[in-house]
């Protein structure tokens, strides 16, 4: 098969097979892109994830762009990326249109009240997991508390909090003499 459509279709399949975001996508990518297509190696995929964590944006998109770029340049990167988001856009578009139709029914309102309670528990479980990787020492913990206060108490814009966090990180590392 021509490589360009193959990139789109393979990554669309990865998009369909993944429930629950970037990390859930790792085993699917291993099967489809490393084992079956042999487009990249396991080491490269691991690098992709490391880079995905330290570049802006959706991790799955970063991985798709990297593989597509490596195989077929800029156009390949773009097609692989469009492939990985295509199923989401289609499925969510349908669900959103459908939800509007029955959101006013009383039983649906009860169901969503239950779902909202569940979402709170899911978010805080993820936060606990993320804390273990993000807050690795005392300055990071202090930064976490300050950022939480700035956002939750004083309603500072998320963009401002993120940019300040990055700047503080740079300053703290500078003071420590670029300790690695």
């Amino acid at each position: 098969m021509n490589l360009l459509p193959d990139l789109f279709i393979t990554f669309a399949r990865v998009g369909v097979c993944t429930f629950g975001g970037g990390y859930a996508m790792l085993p699917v990518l291993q099967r489809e892109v490393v084992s079956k297509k042999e487009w990249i190696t396991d080491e490269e995929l691991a690098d992709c994830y490391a880079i995905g964590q330290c570049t802006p944006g959706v991790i799955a998109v970063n991985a798709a762009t990297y593989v597509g770029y490596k195989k077929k340049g800029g156009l390949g990167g773009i097609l692989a990326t469009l492939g990985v988001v295509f199923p989401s856009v289609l499925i969510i578009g349908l669900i959103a249109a459908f939800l509007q139709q029955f959101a006013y029914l009383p039983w649906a309102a009860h169901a969503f009240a239950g779902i909202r309670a569940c979402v709170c528990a899911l978010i805080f479980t993820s936060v606990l997991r993320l804390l273990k990787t993000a807050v690795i020492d005392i300055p990071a913990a202090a930064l976490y508390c300050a950022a939480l206060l700035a956002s939750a108490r004083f309603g500072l814009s998320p963009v401002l909090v993120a940019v300040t966090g990055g700047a503080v990180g740079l300053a703290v590392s500078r003071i420590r003499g670029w300790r690695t």
Partner: protein
Amino acid sequence: MAHLIYLCLFWEFFQVGLFSVGGGLATIPFLADMGRRTGWFTQAQLTDMIAVSESTPGPIGVNMATYAGFLTAGIPGCAVSTLGLITPSVLVILLIARFLQRFRHSRGVNAVFYGLRPASVALITAAGITVTRLALFSPLNWKAVVLAAAVFLCLQIKPLGRLHPIVFIALSAAAGVLFRF
């Protein structure tokens, strides 16, 4: 003027893609802020969005963008907001793909992310507090508080915590209908 909304959507989601670091949930604080500023969707709709995104395939950030785009501008909104979200990622990776290894081991980059990660988790925590306040405490809904606590405890138990979120979302929907939340 009708096209202006698409431009706004693209720009708003471009910023989300540029500044949210560390996976799908990192988009929540930016979306909460966006909803407050623009009035495109309410915080309750944001919570529904999170539930739908967790229960459908695909990257959560993309699902959230698609859903928010639909609420704002229908089907074309889905496409525009998703393109806005992914454009920064694509640009950055295309720019650094050549010297990826050097970028990854750059001390400057590591230093910035050392600070960016706790800030990002703090933002998610703050968004979680907002969502919780809205879902459980305004007005106080005892049944929902008990359910949220029960689900949270279940998620901390090893074998149960590995279950897919959709299991908990479906059970909570059933509980909501059964006990008339």
